[in-house]
């Protein structure tokens, strides 16, 4: 079993698992941190950004100044943002049979795989993952395509320039066309493996992946669609929990993870020192403080996920903080869909939220915020928003990288006043880097990363509980974070030590193949005639067809010769009728040489010599110029074209053996 690690990002993994004849991709994350090296894409022309000085070398050489701009000591590429794709050359991606998507954050690279690699398999994801992933992709495409950039810089990536260290930015980007991320590319290949429309709480559904795997979705976790795949390849058990905890989602059923051979751990918290509860409190306090002083609050965020938690928290808080008359705006091309989708996936939510549905009430309170006009949502800055807009207010909008989306406009608008505050809640991007092209900035910046993924304490509890034989994780998890090198608690500590992987690495997973269980159909078993060959051991010959499907092996009675079916254009190999030859009986037992020689003599053979060999005996009939080679598992009669003699000798040999 081999694991091909196509991404080095611990929370945006893309691993491919090869086992027996099946190739499975686990998640397909797109690393977007590379966009931080690019200039923001303003919705309207920004004089400040367009007047940034071009970057020139120390010696005054300014041949890159069209492509690279300088802002407050940082250099940015003035071009369409580019992303860091998973490795495409480590393994032939057209051989991937199945892609399992555990959550919507980890599917953004899917179009690159499904479109450009010859991939012809199936993608599995839960319904919320599919729906919200689609929203995220649509938003991303919308953000980038609506401000087409005339310039597409490439000179800075020139190998010579890079080699000479002339450019400060290292290009690791393989693909620079995010706009090709189109949902339709993926749509036809995705199977919603839990597409229940009902609101009834439902146990983890099982789904079958060909003959090799049986998988189980253990838990829809935080942010609507985090979940856990567990599958049982053959008899072994392998678990993959890219898990996240949050109060509003169903708790994880850990029982199925027990005694795994290998546990692949990815997607743990990115900010292990920040406790989400404390950060939510911090978020509320800073928000209230700003608004009470007459300032505006900007919250760069994704259109789904933590925003639900924040809105729920604010719902409880705004009245008590006297903020009832402060408008909350949620601006995203998919704002409406996101808010509505979140309310219809109740079966994925925790018990409290599910019970609300039966009352019936919407599981999330933002419906009430919208009804009471406290929360308003708009697809973009244009249109209704500009007429409704009043300050001070709180704006939730994307993109958290501050490089594209409506957030760019608000940064330009509010950045100059110290009354305003930008509060970072998404942990995916370094807030200091995100802010770099907006410097100098007067507005206050608060960093409250809310990361509800598993933290290291929870992981260590999980590992204690489920006791996997081996743990595989990104190399980042095997040592404390560089900024907190003394925090030995911020790493995975298990015995044997976790196997770590990095980008473009191939791991051989310590996985031993063992016997497999095969069932025999009753009618076939009835037909068997066992023969006792030793006390307690009986043998029988079986003629059957081995039927292997869904990881189960069954021996079925051989079909009777039937008429060729014809008509079907395509037949699967398993349905082909095997050729049934006439079966010869099988022999068992051993030949006692002395008695055999006596029998030969009785039948008129003389001048018999017996030689002992390493493996058995050779009986030499000198007169007949014939040689009988008796070994443990074979007997050969070597005579010179005398078929009659051979048959006679064979029959004599057979007398000593049992047939069945």
């Amino acid at each position, binding site marked *: 079993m081999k694991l091909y690690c196509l991404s080095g990002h611990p929370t945006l993994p893309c691993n491919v698992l090869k086992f027996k004849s099946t190739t499975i991709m686990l998640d397909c994350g797109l690393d977007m941190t590379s966009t931080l090296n690019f200039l923001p894409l303003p919705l309207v022309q920004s004089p400040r950004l367009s007047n940034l000085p071009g970057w020139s070398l120390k010696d005054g050489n300014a041949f890159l100044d069209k492509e690279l701009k300088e802002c407050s000591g940082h250099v940015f590429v003035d071009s369409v943002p580019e992303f860091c794709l998973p490795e495409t050359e480590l393994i032939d991606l057209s051989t991937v049979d199945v892609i399992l998507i555990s959550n919507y954050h980890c599917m953004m690279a899917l179009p690159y795989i499904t479109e450009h690699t010859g991939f012809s398999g199936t993608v599995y994801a839960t319904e919320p993952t599919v729906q919200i992933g689609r929203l995220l992709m649509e938003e991303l495409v919308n953000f980038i395509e609506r401000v087409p950039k005339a310039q597409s810089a490439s000179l800075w990536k020139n190998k010579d320039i890079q080699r000479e260290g002339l450019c400060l930015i290292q290009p690791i980007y393989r693909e620079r066309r995010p706009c090709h991320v189109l949902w339709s590319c993926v749509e036809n290949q995705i199977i919603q493996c839990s597409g229940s429309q009902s609101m009834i709480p439902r146990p983890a559904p099982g789904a079958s992946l060909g003959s090799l795997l049986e998988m189980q979705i253990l838990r829809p976790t935080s942010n609507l669609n985090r979940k856990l795949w567990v599958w049982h390849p053959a008899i072994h058990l392998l678990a993959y929990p890219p898990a996240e905890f949050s109060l509003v989602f169903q708790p994880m059923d850990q029982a199925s993870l027990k005694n795994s051979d290998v546990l692949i751990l990815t997607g743990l918290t990115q900010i292990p020192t920040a406790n989400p509860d404390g950060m939510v409190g911090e978020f509320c306090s*800073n928000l209230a403080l700003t608004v009470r002083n007459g300032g505006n609050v900007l919250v760069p965020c994704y259109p789904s996920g933590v925003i639900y938690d924040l809105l729920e928290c604010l719902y409880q808080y705004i009245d*008590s903080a*006297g903020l009832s008359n402060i408008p909350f705006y949620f601006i995203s091309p998919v704002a409406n869909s996101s808010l509505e989708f979140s309310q219809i996936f109740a079966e994925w939510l925790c018990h409290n939220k599910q019970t609300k549905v039966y009352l019936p009430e919407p599981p999330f309170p933002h419906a009430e915020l919208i009804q009471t006009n406290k929360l308003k949502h708009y697809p973009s800055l244009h249109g209704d928003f500009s007429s409704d807009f009043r300050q001070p207010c709180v704006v939730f909008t994307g993109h958290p990288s501050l490089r594209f989306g409506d957030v760019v406009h608000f940064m330009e608008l509010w950045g100059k006043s110290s009354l305003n505050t930008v509060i970072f809640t998404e942990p995916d991007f370094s807030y200091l880097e995100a802010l770099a092209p907006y410097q100098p900035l007067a507005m206050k910046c608060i960093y409250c990363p809310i990361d509800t993924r598993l933290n290291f304490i929870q992981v260590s509890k999980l590992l204690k509980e489920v006791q996997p034989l081996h743990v595989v994780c990104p190399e980042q998890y095997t040592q404390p974070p560089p900024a907190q090198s*003394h925090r030995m608690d911020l790493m995975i500590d298990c015995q044997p030590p976790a196997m770590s992987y990095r980008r473009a690495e191939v791991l051989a997973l310590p996985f031993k193949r063992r016997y497999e269980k095969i069932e025999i159909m009753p009618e076939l078993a009835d037909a068997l005639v066992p023969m006792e060959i030793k006390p307690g051991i009986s043998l029988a010959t079986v003629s059957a067809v081995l039927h292997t499907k869904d990881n189960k092996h069954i021996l079925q009675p051989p079909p009777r010769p039937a008429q060729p079916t014809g008509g079907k254009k395509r037949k699967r190999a398993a349905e082909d009728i095997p050729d049934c030859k006439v079966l010869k009986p099988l022999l068992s037992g051993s030949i006692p040489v002395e008695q055999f020689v006596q029998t030969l003599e009785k039948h008129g053979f003389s001048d018999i010599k017996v030689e002992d060999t390493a493996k058995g005996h050779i009986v030499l009939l000198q007169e007949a110029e014939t040689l009988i080679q008796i070994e443990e598992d074979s007997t050969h009669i070597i005579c010179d074209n005398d078929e009659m003699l051979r048959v006679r000798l064979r029959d004599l040999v057979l007398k000593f053996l049992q047939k069945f």
Partner: protein
Amino acid sequence: MDPECSQLLPALCAVLADPRQPMADDTCLEKLLDWFKTITEAGSSLLLLQENPCLVELLCHMLKPQDLSSRVLSFSLRLTGVLAAQEDCFQYLQQGELLPKLFGEAGPLGGAAWTSPAVRSGWIQGLRSLAQHASALHFLAHCGAVDTIFSLQEDSSLFVASAAGQLLVHILGLSMQGPAGGPPSLQAGDWPACAQKIVGHIEESLRATATPQITQALNVLTTTFGHCHNPWTQVLWVQLSPLVAGLLEKDPIPAAHSLVDLLLSVARSPGLSSSSCGLWETLAQTLSHLSPTQAGPLALGILKLQDCPQALRAQAFAVLLQPLACVFKAMAQDPGPSGVPDGTVGGSMTAGVPLPSKAACVGLLCRSLAHLELLLPLPQRPCPWPQAPLLGAAVTLLQLCGGSARPACDMGRHLCTLLLGCVRVQRAALDFLGALSDGTGPRELVTQVFAVLLEYLRSPDSSPTVLKKAFQATFRWLLNSPKTPGCWDLDPHALLFLRDLLPVLQKRLCSPCWEVRDSSLEFLTQMTRHWGGQAGFRHALLASEVPKLTEQLLRDPESYVRASAVTAMGQLSSQGLCVPPAGPEHQGGQQKSLLVELLHILSTDSEGFPRRAVMQVFTQWLRDSHADVAGDTEQFVAGVLQVASQDLDWEVRAQGLELALVFLEQTLGQPRSHCPHAVTPPVEAPVGPLAQALQPLCRVRLFDFAFRALFDCDRPVAQKSCDLLLFLRAQTASSSSLQESRSSPDVASVEAALQRWQAGDQAQPLGDLEPEVVLAVVRSLDLEGLRGALAESSDHVEKSPQSLLQDMLATVGVLGENEADCY
């Protein structure tokens, strides 16, 4: 006993003796027993029995084989004990063979009733009461009770086992008093047989291998040395101390907690001269043998002792410091001399050895910190006190818990993992740090203290309780920060700290967690009270958003927060800190609006806490002659009293009376003497006649309020009103000019109205009162009598023995009726 009770008693005894009429409530039996105790303490038990033969009948009835309730049986045993405590009564009961039958083998001891713990407990308590004289000792020896008591020490019921131990101690003490009350022999061999038997039993238990037996023996000894300080106790200790010391040889040491209790009890006993009986050596030996967790309480106890050898004190102090020394060592970059004594005793906690589990480590640290904090204010605390190392250890602990410590060695990293985010240690360390503020420390350490406090105040992960403690510790450190001579303002370092602190406070005032908002407001109030008048503080505070945010919290949804905001705003306003300095022209308006806002809270807030807070602020404002109040005091007082008098919360009404009293004092110009801290406001002395002086009081309808409060259904309000009127009467006693109005018709009508009020009909208003009428009414009222009645507890009528007996009979009667209904 009064005749009414005597009449009721036979019926009650009959009921008690009747197994078909069970007592539903055994608290009645307890009260009944208490009553008998008071009777027997005051008079002769024998007489009681002779006058009430029903009691003896009841006791005799207990001897008959029947299905009696265990409660009644237990009660009877205890009653017998109470009665037999007097020797003549004991003889009387002895003659009737009652005692041996009740307490001997023939009684419940051998019967089925003995299975009930209540009966066993009653038997012990009966004997405990009975064992007061030499005859009782003979009786005990004769009926073999002591052996039964020994076995009861192992009773399954903890109460019974504990009572058995206490009884042994009591019997031992009694038997050692000697036959004729003379001094007992100091030779153990000459002790009375009973005492020898008990001591023998203790010795045997101490030699036992089972821990429970050892624990019992140690507990008996602890109680003995704690209660009895006669010279014979020293003989006892000398005899037993080798056995006690022998316990230390065992591994693990059995009953360590009880052993510590015993040693401390012996050490505290004035009857023993510690030096002569090897106690110090035993203590030192015990300290070194016990585990750090067990040794902590012993070390603290030793350090609290008055006269104790210096070496032992040093050893005990080292035990207490050991966990902190370990932390210090684990964190020290340079393992040079730290100043904290090394953990040289106790073995398992020395640095370098891996710490035990998280729970054990946390428990040990918390206990150590708590012990040191207890020791800190005591005069006998060790000297020199290692202030600086302790300060360093507390700061380090807090850094470890907060995740900001950077340990250099593995041990430190391990500690860091154990303690990270541990709220218990954080709370204990913050308390300890606060307590350490009374001493001084090197400048750089104090800087570290403020830094770590700021870290905790800032951290989003600080739990509300931790934050509250951080605020408290911060305030204590600010209070004790070095002051510039001759200047009461904060020192420059503290002011710098304040500049960092105020933004944190701002954020905390907006916290979604109400406990955080509340403790932030309390902290602000404390700060303002102390430094509100100082320029540096005022400047920093006014430059921040804190006053504005505090004002907004007056409308907080949580009533506790509103109450704290009211107090904080009251304090800010008293110091003139409510207004931004930019707009002096708005000053009046702003202040007015706060007064209006507080009045609004007082009249409309649905919760009591904010309204109480408003009343306290108003009272303080009146006392301090707050600018806003001083403008039109009469109108202010009239408005407040009108609202307060109708409040449903008695505390608000009581506070209203307090405000009325302040106004009364100010009007009469004579503050009450029992209020030494009250600032005497510059009120004009009553120049005119008394009537004129009382006019303002009448105008604000103060007396209307006070008379109404006199008959308030809540006693504290009535008491307060009583005090107020008594004060007024005392103040006006010298003035006789108004005597003649005693019989005017107004007075009569007011008195009539008051009588109706007292009867519960408070609908009728008093109308406008004239000073003369008020004074006449005040003089005519029996205020002293009223005060006396109010001072009685509310159930003084229902508490009489007669009522108890009636209640018990009535309960049984009701039960009987129900029974009849069933058929």
